[in-house]
């Protein structure tokens, strides 16, 4: 690829296909090299996107974890990149909470004293799940033993009394569950052994209904990822941050229109599902821009602070490129 092109690393989602098939309008006057880079599973152009962006800063523009970005930004040190308020990945925590059959866990209240496998302790989904348990379900995350399977990208001092017992990288999680050494797994991409219905089940039998209720109560489809841009690239291309917000908005609109075709998806009832969700949410659950996402980001900052990951709770405004705060 052209050495002068701006590299742009994104995961493979339906809403990113307009970037991969060239139908999303990109800011004018710049050559982009759109790369399909996965995080925990490989895309066309590789994997380990977040680690390649930090500390490596391999890409000019990159989809990145909300939690590690917040931790870096809240530490006040100069960062090599700045976020824009585009949020390509969102997850409810409830569907991602899997527990071992026979562990005696019927609801969130039964998690006290149990051992839950995570990706890293500060992985965005880990932070969200702990925060939701405490502030939405009233189950103190401090009473649970957390077993990360991966090291943290950003160092932090765990709060006193917090129990973190790492699982060695590459350990057989299925075998650990079968031996009763782990009781559950809260991960953004759970490995097959952790979603094997013979061994595990979702904590909430009707996670779909649980999440619909959560959305009505909080108004939030929780953010997992944002987008960061290398500061030198921002300096070299004034207006790029703002223009990219518009590109992401356009990509959202285009991918939403995919579902107009009743057979776009290999889901036989994909169009019905789309209509049911539109009715259930009654709002766009993928809004881009600062204003529509401020409360969502602010709640997450509260979770991160409560969990001892950041020394102080910064204003959401401080996290994003100044020119995007009016979006």
């Amino acid at each position, binding site marked *: 690829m052209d050495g002068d092109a701006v590299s742009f690393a994104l995961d*493979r989602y*339906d809403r990113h296909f307009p970037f991969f098939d060239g139908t999303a309008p990109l800011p004018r006057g710049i050559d982009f090299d759109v790369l399909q880079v996965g995080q925990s599973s490989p895309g066309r152009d590789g994997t380990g996107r977040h680690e390649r962006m930090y500390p490596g800063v391999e890409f000019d523009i990159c989809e990145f974890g909300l939690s590690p970005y917040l931790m870096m930004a809240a530490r006040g040190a100069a960062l090599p990149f700045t976020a824009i308020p585009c949020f390509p990945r969102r997850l409810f925590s409830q569907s991602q909470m899997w527990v071992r059959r026979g562990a005696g866990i019927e609801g969130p209240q039964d998690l006290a004293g149990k051992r839950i496998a995570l990706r890293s302790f500060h992985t965005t989904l880990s932070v969200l799940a702990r925060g939701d348990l405490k502030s939405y379900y009233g189950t103190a995350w401090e009473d649970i033993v957390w077993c990360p399977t991966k090291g943290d990208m950003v160092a932090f001092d765990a709060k006193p009394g917090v129990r973190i017992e790492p699982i060695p990288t590459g350990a057989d999680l299925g075998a650990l569950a079968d031996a009763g050494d782990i009781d559950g797994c809260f991960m953004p991409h759970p490995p097959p052994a952790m979603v094997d219905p013979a061994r595990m089940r979702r904590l909430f039998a009707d996670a779909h209904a649980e999440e619909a209720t959560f959305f009505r109560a909080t108004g939030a489809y929780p953010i997992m990822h944002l987008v960061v841009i290398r500061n030198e690239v921002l300096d070299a291309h004034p207006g790029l941050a703002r223009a990219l917000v518009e590109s992401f908005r356009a990509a959202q609109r285009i991918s939403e229109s995919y579902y107009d075709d*009743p*057979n*776009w998806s290999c889901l036989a009832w994909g169009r019905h599902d789309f209509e049911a*969700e539109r009715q259930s949410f009654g709002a766009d659950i993928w809004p881009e821009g600062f204003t529509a996402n401020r409360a969502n980001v602010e709640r997450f900052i509260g979770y991160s602070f409560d969990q001892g990951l950041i020394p102080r709770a910064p204003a959401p405004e401080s996290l994003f490129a100044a020119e995007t705060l009016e979006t």
Partner: protein
Amino acid sequence: MAQDKDLTLAIERYDRHFPFFDGTVTPPEGYNLKVFQVGQSSELRDGIDRHGRMLHGEEFDVAEFSMSTFLMAKGRNMPIAGVPIFPRRLFSQSQMWVHPDSDFWHPRDLVGKKVALSSFQTTLSLLAKGDMKFHYEVPWEDIHWLLTTDEKVKFNVKEGVKLDFIGNRADLGKMLEDREIDAFFLPHPPHSVVTGETPARRLFADCKAEELDYFEKVGDFPIMHVVAIRQSLLDADPNIAKEVFRMFNESKALAATYYEDPNWSRLAWGRHYFEEERNLFVSDPWENGFGRNKANLERFIKYSHDQGLIDEIYAPDKLFAENTLDT
């Protein structure tokens, strides 16, 4: 080394075709694969009218093509070849729409009514008429059909069939609202209906239950499209049929892995729907190949003959390149 020949491929924009658009599918050896995103009834990145351009212009080497028109073309010994790949499937039930205030809840309620179609031979039209007669025991001959697009292959209308060409497919939402028509059966509902601008509801109150019952009784997720190859290309390189078969299956398998990511889709519960459908269908409703789809093809040939689109019933072996009949 010999220069690779270009192989032009025109396909619709579906999740299962994205491996063609992002270049992750392995191209056929000895060919330089050129992929075009061409719609049928709506404009995509590289244009519209895919079926007509393939049939009458031989504009592409390989193209996703209408199953019904293909049956007619083969029944007339027109020079076009096929491989048993079926990239689009629809149940007819979800595509039957009526006015929300009407008392129509079953195909039998439409006897003597005005029902709009795309063309008479459009695959969804063929399927809906055939399902009415052979699945619901409501003779399609008792309906007044209103046609909105031209027939790709000419045929003589059977005696006694009531049909009128009215055109203006885009206005069908408004016409239904004004009760100028009683229903429409279309592969893509009009834009005004998709957006909710004009009122319409599906004929069946619970399409999913109805379609699941149909799948259990009939055994198929009905075929809409097939993959056609330029006859002269197949004659020059018979092996291309096997390569095309391989490529589409590879693309389909890659796309199935997308749903392993719980956040691949902008449907918040996309992963749940995927799991539910897998449990409901048990076997893969999208399976390609001649053997698995023979019964579906025979049923369609029967429907096509019954509707006066082909003169004689023929064996489905006639449809495909010989070296793909063992699939």
